[in-house]
């Protein structure tokens, strides 16, 4: 894991539709390792790493650049900012959070009524929360921010525990880092069609266009998914049903069977499992089908594309601090590279 690269990716500000800062880092990182670098009209990067075997399948690898966040939606008379979410974020995490606003990263905080003055337990909706940037009044605030300015969680990237890293937006900057490492490695027998996509969090938009353009034979989506492997303090001892963790940290790359957006091609899934087994790479199946990924739009692009989703297990995604284990990242990288090498022996996706 190149932690310097992952740090810069994690700390870059880039909500859906405003991925410019992330794109800049990636363009520098892949420079010299690929050809045909393009930025499409939505802002996704596509690049090609030519394979060594003629006629081998053309394999798309996709990771999304955008993160969830917010936008400034207005300024109140007292200079407080109204804001609206971009992507799905739990309203319950917001009170008292720190944020960074706009290209100049102006700091702000989500205000909250002190407990002395009220103990109401009903969740306050985002529409009723405000961000204070310390502006004296409306004019003062308007001089500093404008409507539509991006807001991201104020967070930093760093080490945690013995072998974990923490930071915001590892969903899916970890996938971007993985894809960059794949491009820096090689050569591979197959053509690698890399796509760093935009606008995943608001509906898998960038991947749709990238897949329509690249028109691959097979696609792998490199994602970051929810590890919910923490105990439930409210659980009754010896209860028959236990919380379903979806996937676990250190369990290895996570293969999706299906989610809200895709049923993974069974033959391709079998190929993933066989390849992992062959190379002694641990893996796990995602045991909850929630959410969707770029795979949802890629597999339906053009005439249809056999697509699988490979995720790093990560805790607390869509919050200011997400956790990722180095072993999982390293195993995902080994797996993806093994897949690219073994792809020429893949018997096809027909069932």
């Amino acid at each position: 894991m190149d932690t310097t690269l992952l740090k810069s990716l994690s700390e870059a500000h880039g909500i859906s539709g405003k991925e410019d800062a992330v794109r800049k880092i990636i363009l520098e990182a892949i420079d010299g390792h690929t050809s045909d670098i393009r930025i499409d009209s939505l802002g996704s990067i596509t690049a090609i790493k030519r394979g060594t075997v003629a006629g081998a399948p053309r394999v798309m690898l996709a990771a999304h650049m955008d993160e969830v966040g917010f936008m400034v939606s207005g300024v109140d008379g007292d200079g407080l900012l109204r804001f609206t979410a971009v992507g799905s974020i739990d309203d319950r995490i917001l009170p008292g959070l720190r944020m960074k606003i706009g290209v100049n990263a102006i700091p702000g905080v989500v205000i909250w009524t002190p407990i002395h003055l009220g103990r109401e337990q009903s969740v306050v909706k985002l529409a009723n929360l405000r961000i204070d940037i310390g502006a004296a009044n409306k004019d003062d605030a308007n001089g500093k921010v404008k409507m539509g300015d991006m807001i991201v969680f104020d967070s930093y990237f760093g080490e945690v525990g013995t072998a974990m890293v923490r930071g915001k937006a590892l969903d899916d900057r970890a996938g971007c880092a993985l894809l960059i490492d794949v491009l820096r490695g090689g050569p591979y027998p197959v053509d690698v069609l890399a796509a760093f996509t935009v606008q995943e969090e608001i509906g898998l938009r960038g991947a749709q266009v990238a897949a329509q353009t690249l028109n691959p034979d097979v696609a792998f989506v490199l994602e970051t998914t929810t590890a919910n492997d923490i105990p439930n303090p409210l659980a009754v001892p010896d209860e028959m049903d236990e919380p379903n963790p979806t996937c676990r940290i250190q369990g290895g790359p996570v293969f999706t069977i299906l989610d809200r957006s895709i049923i993974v091609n069974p033959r391709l899934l079998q190929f993933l499992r066989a390849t992992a087994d062959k190379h002694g790479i641990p893996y796990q199946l995602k045991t909850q089908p929630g959410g969707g990924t770029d795979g949802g739009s890629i597999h339906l692009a053009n005439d249809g594309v056999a697509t699988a989703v490979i995720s790093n297990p990560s805790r607390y995604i869509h919050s200011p601090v997400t956790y990722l284990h180095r072993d999982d990242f390293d195993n995902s990288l080994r797996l993806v590279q093994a897949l690219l090498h073994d792809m020429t022996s893949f018997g096809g996706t027909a069932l």
Partner: protein
Amino acid sequence: MFGGGYGRRILFDLKAHLKTLVEAHAPSGHEAPLRELVQSAWKGLVDSTEQDRLGSLIGIKRATQPPETRRKIMLAAHMDEIGMMVRDVVDGFVYVQRISGVDNRVMLAQTVMVHGRQPLPGIIATVPPHLLKNGNGNGKYPEFDSFVVDLGLPADEVARLVRMGDLITVDVPMIDLNSNRVAGKAMDDRACVAAVTLCLHLLQKMHHSWDVYAVATVQEESGLLGAKTSAYHIKPDIAIALDVTFAKQPGVPDDKAIEMNGGPGIGIGPNFHPKLYDKLRETARKHEIKLQDDLIPGASGTDAWAIQVALEGVPTALLEVPIRNMHSAVETADLRDIERCGRLLAAFIADLDKDFLTAIAWEDLKAQEATT
């Protein structure tokens, strides 16, 4: 009296055109009557017309000074409206099924037209207050399932003239309000079709180097279908979608609305190309046309949403005419906003040059190419 500005230079009665459009009947999937109206309105303004395979009308005005590589701008405004359908005919009465986003709360006692073997005017029946239990039917608006259209005809006549699947639309004239405001049905989105027509009129006396593809799209209200298919048909280099948006009024949160007579809204958000937004703003500033930012953090629900991801992706912008009382029979627009929208489109098109696509390219790649 409305008609200053462009009125001195060309002969085009925007209000009369709009009135013709909004008073015509064309719910999603049944746009033929409107297509004919728009086709005749655009006749002489465009060099040729085409259709995509779902029936979107495409008017093509070729560049007056084309560059070596021809470029295409697509303008998209939808011509369908919300509507209803005959679900059943029982004892001379017509039962109703909704088609797209019709609001049941604004339908009671509305005059409607049932499009049977001949157009049949009718009314959505109501129960007199004297006979209602609890005063107002349990405090709830009736659902479409309970609507009955009364055509005032004998049962056998109705059975002969109406069958399941026939269309029902609200049937009301466009009216004038104060301050250049007009109210009627289907301002969503014929106000924007009218803006495109105005743009085509203005372009007659202007030079432009891009080919203009003006599109009246079908089936926006039932899933942005016409925008998707016409974008595929045209393969535009850039696109501007036009739709209505909420104008400020009691009951609409200020965050979700823009001012009447404040100029067209312009979409900001991931659905819209940021550089295209900048360029439209620049044109508006140069020509002193008022614009209002409209923040749309995700799905815009407009034709722009479908066009942006067509083919290999299309840089797309959204211009909006603010209206009040959306999806009612009194959708209210300000003619000056429509007029500004048309003028802005024409000015923008005239400003497009052969290097425009480079000008809106993502800067980071350009910077990188410059260094290598």
